Each structure stands twice: as structure tokens, then as C-alpha cells.
């Protein structure tokens, strides 16, 4: 009986306690920078597309929501002809971001993707591509990779030795 009264008393004083509810659409909690939300395609510091259309993200995706087609420009750079993510399928696991060798595909702290039509949840490359480098600021794949493109031959990348003549016997 006494404990019941004590409970009543302490519950009554909760009337003056702080309320924990976050009034969502008006108040928003800050999301951590590494939150796994809407997926974007980033650009390298020079403003070029980072994606080299290697299909690793599509292969890693457990729900097959990523579709793309690789192609090559006149400089020998690979890029996706189209890049399509179906956000009504995406489970925001972040495997694509982990698989990406060029830090092109990244997840962002934006979780407000609700829509009235499923078809408008299919994002094309124009919707995905952003202007900046995202979470990785200085990385440029072609500047460090030993891949020959028009303005840079093999052996000219950063920290890269000139290619060895494999037919010589000397090291």
C-alpha cells in the first residue's frame, strides 16, 4: 500500500520533468556524419566523376538495387553511361561504399526519402551525382593509379616508378 502511494507520488512529479519526445518534423536530431542514408556519387578534387564503373558496388549490393553500364571517354577514362539506384529496394547497408575502390559511391546523413510514388524513388545518375568530394576530400583515383589515360601515361602517377622493362634480365 505504502509503495503504491510512493509510486503515485513519484509519477505525479514527472509532470514537471523534461519530455523526451523529439517533435520530429519541426525538431530534427543531428545525424552523425557517418550515418548511412541517401546514396550519392562524388567527384574528385578536380571536379571529374570518381566512378570508374567497375561494377563492384552492384556486385556487393545484397538487394541488387544498383544498375550501371560502363563506357569509356576519348581520354581512356572509364565512367558509367548510366547509374541507377532503386531506393525503394536499398537497405542502406553501406556495402557499396565499402566495395568502392575510388570512394565514388558514398552514403550521406539524409534519411528523408519518403515519396508517394515508387517510380520517383529510382534515382538516375543526374540525381545521384553531387558537386563535391563528399567525405573523402583529397583522393583522386587516376592521379595515384597506374592506369594510362590521355593526359597521363604509365609511371607518371604520384609515388609511381617508371614501368619496368619485363624482358630485361637486370632488375
Amino acid at each position, binding site marked *: 500500500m505504502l509503495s*503504491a502511494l510512493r*509510486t*503515485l507520488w*513519484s*509519477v*505525479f512529479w*514527472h*509532470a514537471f*520533468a*523534461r*519530455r*523526451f*519526445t523529439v*517533435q520530429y518534423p519541426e525538431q530534427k536530431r543531428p545525424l552523425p556524419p557517418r550515418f548511412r542514408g541517401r546514396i550519392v556519387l562524388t567527384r574528385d578534387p578536380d571536379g571529374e566523376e570518381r566512378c570508374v564503373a567497375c561494377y563492384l558496388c552492384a556486385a556487393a549490393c545484397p538487394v541488387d538495387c544498383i544498375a550501371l553500364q560502363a563506357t569509356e571517354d576519348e581520354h581512356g577514362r572509364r565512367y558509367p553511361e548510366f547509374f541507377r539506384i532503386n531506393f525503394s529496394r536499398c537497405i542502406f547497408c553501406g556495402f557499396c561504399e565499402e566495395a568502392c575502390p575510388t570512394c565514388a559511391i558514398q552514403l550521406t546523413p539524409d534519411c528523408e526519402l519518403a515519396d508517394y510514388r515508387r517510380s520517383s524513388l529510382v534515382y538516375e545518375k543526374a540525381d545521384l551525382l553531387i558537386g563535391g568530394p563528399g567525405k573523402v576530400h583529397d583522393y583522386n583515383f587516376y592521379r595515384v593509379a597506374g592506369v594510362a589515360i590521355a593526359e597521363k601515361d604509365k609511371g607518371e602517377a604520384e609515388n609511381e616508378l617508371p614501368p619496368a622493362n619485363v624482358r630485361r634480365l637486370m632488375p
Partner: protein
Amino acid sequence: MDALNALLREVNSAEVLREVALVLGVLIGALSLGGGLTFVERRLLALWQDRYGPNRVGPFGLLQVVADTIKLFTKEDWTPPFADRFVFVVAPAIVIAATLMSFAVIPLAPGLVVADLNVGLLFFLGMSSLSVYSVALGGWSANSKYALLGGLRAAGQMVSYEVFMGLSLMGVVATTGSFSLGDIVEAQRRVWFCIPQCIGLVTFLIAGLAETRRIPFDLPEAEGELVAGFHTEYSGMKFGMFFLGEYVGVALVSALTVVLFFGGWLGPVLPPIVWFLGKTALLIALFILVRGALPRLRYDQLMRLGWKVLLPLSLANVVVTGAVILALRR
């Protein structure tokens, strides 16, 4: 037709209008109070649980009641094919009818009462016993095991709590010497009965909680074990009527507690009706606080509390009150 006209001319039309307005006012007031309480309870519970509760529909969420009502009315009103149709339909009507009938004897202010019965208190007790039928029959007619268990529990609980609900009021009746609620309020001019009859107050409040099947005693519903107890098979507005009946019952028990123990409309400065309504509102808030704070009893605890603690307590209260009255009369 002529006879009817003559009859109409004989009765004072202003008097009749006043009566009709009073009846309609109490009826509509009680029903909308019951509806509004669904909202008030959710907001108050939320307040005591550090949340906001429904605050989106309309200003402060006030239109939530309207939204809920529209939802209940547009839901499928399903009667299970295995149910006893007639009883199934009648059961929810009984609970509403019984609780609304009891409001007729509650004096809101001096002279402001629908029916000033000289046995008003007995009428209330009778009506509250009738609502047992609603719950028990509702549970029985649904022909489902959860509903049946809920109905059984309700019958057992309400019958045993009825016993000392009546007894706990006998002290008040003995002190006043009348069953009329108006007389009982007038008898509290010097001191409210909550002081000399504090044991009666406590036992009546507990019995009132049990009679309205509110949380520490909501075993007939017990959503943790019995799905929804006696109204498992009910949907749409039939469910709504059980729901409304519960809240009208809460308002009724609070109003009656105010009348019997807290001096009804008595109070300084403010008009009597304000005093009555204010006290009732406070008691309703207490009922909601109890729901927010206390866990449900086990069934054996419930029965033990009823028969072994509260019944002897209220009997002792009657004996002591009688002895004191007798001693003072000498």
C-alpha cells in the same frame, strides 16, 4: 388529440422545457465528457511519462477525439458468425445505458439534478451492478475463449467488489440519515465526509476503480494475457461503446466520490457548479494518475485484497461509525 392538448396546457411549459434541457444537457455532457476523456487520459498519461501524447490533430491535438470517432464509425462493424447475435449486440448498449442512468441522480448544483430520488445512492449501486451484465454477457456471447475468460473475471471481480462498495458508503448514509445525494451534500456543510469517513473514501475509491475496470484492476481486459478480454471480438462502434462506457464510468465514479466525500457543490466564492466540476476533474485526474503509476494485480491478489482486507475494513468502518453516532445521540 384534444386530451393530449389539454394535458400539455396543464403542465407548465417552462418547467418542462427546463427539465428537458437538463436531461439533454446531462446526457450530452456525460457522453462528450466520456469521449473527451479518451483524449485527456492520453495527454495526461503522456505528461506523467515524459512524452507529449497526441498533439498533432488540431490545436493541442484537441481534434483527436473527432478523428478517433470518425475512425470508429467507419470501421467494419463485424459480428462473428459463432457469436450469440442478440446478446452480442445488446451487451455494449447495457454498459452505456447503465452508467448514463446513474448520472440522473447526481446533483450538479442545488436543484440542478435530473431525478432527485430519495434512494439515489441505491439507484447508483443498482445501476453499477447492471453494468456487470454487460461485461459478463459480452464475454459470454462472443463465444471465444479469451472473451469468455475476460467475462468470467469481470463477473467475479465486480460481484466481489460490489459487496464492499455498498458497505463503504453505509457510513456516509448513516451519518446523513438519507440515501438522497442532495441531502448527503447538504450534510457536509460543516465538514466534508472525506475526513470522518476516510476509510470509507479509500475503500470506495478502490471499489470504484474495480467497478470501472481501470488499470490496477483491469483483469477483465488484461491485454497482456487475454488479448483484450471481454471485448476481444468487438470492433467498430460496439467496441467504442465499451470504451466510452469505461470513461463515462470513470467520470461517474469521480462525480459520485465528490458528492459523497468531498462536499459536492459546496465551496466558497465560486458558483456551486464550478466547484462540483472542478473537484470531479481533479478526481478524474487522480484516476488517470493511478493508471499511469500502478501495475495490474494478479487475480488471487485482487480477490484477497477484496475479501480479506477491504471487506473487513469497510465492515469495521460501518460498526465504528454506528457506534459513534449512537454514542453522540445519548
